[in-house]
């Protein structure tokens, strides 16, 4: 029964994470994964990025993006394993692995964005 009560919450995290990931991740990956490494545009200096990242608004937006996107992954990947690989019988293990992984990632994001930065 506890699981049924949790379902709307994880669904909400899934949809908001899907939206946040769709809106913000492509541009970040285009720049840091392709445009800068390929040398089409020279990468910004560390000092500039540090000042942008240390802005409280950037921290909050990035933290929200990381946490929501991780839970989006957890929820969607859980069902990919259920249906794509027919592992429904390993349900408990998959739930612990997916949402547990998202929790660990969120804790790391809190550390990187709020403590380490």
């Amino acid at each position, binding site marked *: 029964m506890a699981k049924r009560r949790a379902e709307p919450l994880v669904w909400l995290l899934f*949809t908001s*994470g*899907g*939206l946040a*990931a*769709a*809106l*913000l*991740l*492509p*541009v*970040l*990956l*285009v*720049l*840091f*994964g*392709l445009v*800068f*490494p*390929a040398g089409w*545009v020279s*990468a*910004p200096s*560390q*000092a*500039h*990025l*540090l000042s*942008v*990242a240390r802005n409280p608004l*950037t921290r909050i937006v*990035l933290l929200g*993006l*990381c946490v929501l*996107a*991780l839970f*989006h*992954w957890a929820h*969607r*990947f859980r*069902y*990919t394993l259920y*249906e*794509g*690989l*027919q592992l429904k019988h390993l349900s408990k293990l998959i739930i612990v692995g997916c949402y547990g992984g998202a929790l660990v*990632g969120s804790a*790391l*994001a809190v550390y*990187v*964005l709020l403590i*380490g*930065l």
Partner: protein
Amino acid sequence: MNARYTEFHPRWYRPRMPVFWWVGRRSYLIFVLRELSSVFVAWSVVFLLLLVHAVSQGGQQYQQFLNLSRNPWMLALNIVALAFLVFHAITWFTLAPQAMVVRLRGKRVPRSLITGAHYAGWALLSALAAWLILG
């Protein structure tokens, strides 16, 4: 759901499905690829955190991150991830009007308007992020 609690319990009828049932048909394949995009969403979060961590550690670590991102394997991985991210974004925005039923003065807002608003938001936020990063 345990069927073995009595020996007279009927056997469930469960036709066997091959594990790779989704390979044979295009629409199934696209469905599973769309679901798999979440793996690359998670990867880009990891990549982003590696970047922010490197930036917070100083110039030398940031340079190491830039070198890592230039590694051909990393570049290839990120290009694949990028393709999946764009696929995720497009399918997400296309589905949005089905999940969001917005009514204005009792009339349903047309689907194209909702999808269009998402694309506009995508363009706006991408431009804003690029402007902030490129300074």
